[in-house]
């Protein structure tokens, strides 16, 4: 089971509290995790990455295991600790004013 932590405004939008736990079939990559997340919570489509291109939104970052994975290829495997559920995959709203 993959653990995903959403930023607070997306938790509100998806109406979830705390971590989200997802079954991710096949290889555990950023793309497959986000596919599973958007499948479970369709309202999140377009709020983390583009609808079509899958491009990460500019002010969204992806962290795991104390690493910034935002610029990693979306199809690269996530760390084993994320794939095993030991560590969460963090979707973070970048620090920006407003």
């Amino acid at each position, binding site marked *: 089971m993959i653990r995903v932590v959403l930023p607070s405004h*997306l938790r509100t939008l998806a109406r979830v509290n705390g971590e989200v736990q997802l079954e991710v079939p096949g290889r555990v990559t950023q793309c497959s995790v986000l596919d599973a997340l958007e499948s479970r919570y369709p309202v999140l*489509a377009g709020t*983390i990455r583009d609808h079509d291109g899958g491009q990460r939104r500019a002010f969204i970052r992806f962290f795991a295991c104390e690493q910034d994975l935002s610029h990693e290829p979306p199809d690269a495997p996530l760390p084993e600790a994320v794939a095993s559920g030991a560590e969460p995959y963090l979707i973070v709203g970048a620090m920006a004013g407003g």
Partner: protein
Amino acid sequence: MSGVRVLVGTRKGAFVLSSDGKRDRWEVSGPHFAGWEIYHVKGSPADPDRLYASQTSGWSGQVIQRSDDGGATWEPVGNKFAYDGTPGTHQWYDGTPHPWEFERVWHLEPSLDDPDTVYAGVEDAGLFRTADGGQSWQELPALREHKSGPSWQPGAGGMCLHTIILDPAKPGRMFAAISAAGAFRSDDAGQTWRPINRGLQSEGIPDPDAEVGHCVHRLAMHPSRPEVLYMQKHWDVMRTDNAGESWREVSGNLPTDFGFPIDVHAHEPETIYVVPIKSDAEHFPPDGKLRVYRSRTGGDEWEALTSGLPQENCYVNVLRDAMSVDSLDECGVYFGTTGGQVYASADAGDHWAPIVRDLPAVLSVEAQTLP
């Protein structure tokens, strides 16, 4: 007894202000969608309890919310706004070609007779439509694909399609305005468009007959006189009596003719309201005095409305979508400020009082008259 619901979009959420027909005591609900920018909230004329809201943020993009119970509860609907085909380019601020990129929905205009049909004006300028209550949105591409499109440039706030007006007398006729391209009209439900900017004079455009490039801030129409449109332009208040074929200036004795909103009295089609702002560089009222100006002559002759409004040290702005009227027997007028105040007048502007004083900066105000 009839009542009023005022839908307020702010930089950090939406608020619903409700009152009975006296309009002297108000209930405030919100913030809805706290922390998000709410560019616009508007109800369906065909079903006042059907509301649509444009919710947006720099982090997470666009969400559209829909309520079927007058704003008590909301459900997110479709948020995919994909331009039709390959959208091409418009001009960037520096004059270079820039790809058309969806940024946000500025304005939602529900159909006059179908609660499930809504038009959306977006940045970068485009017009979208849903016919299924917001679940899916399709572009009406002819406006963006107008031959002048590649020459359009954004205004300071972005290249936004901010005004959509549906003609109640001629099905299929609609008006749209874009900063800074100008005003456009369609007579065939958005299948074709043409610019309607003849008579507009804009500093910064060398060609006095320029077909496009005008920074139109707002259009307003009275439903009983759909051939008459009023315009608050970047500078100048304008009027057309022939559905945009030609415009003439009606700024008259206004202290400044810069501003953003313009609206029309619900029962008097020649009574109009603006909020003069000092200049394009100084977005606040002249002399620190917040004054609504009313013309009862369709322009040219204006009177300042000050009772109940701050007349010293006031340096707020009133944005283009932040004024509205109700249609009770004595017309109510409402506007919101970037300082977070929403002011109401229950007597067509003679006297004003704040409904709320301390909201986040107000982006939009829409009044609904309830049975």
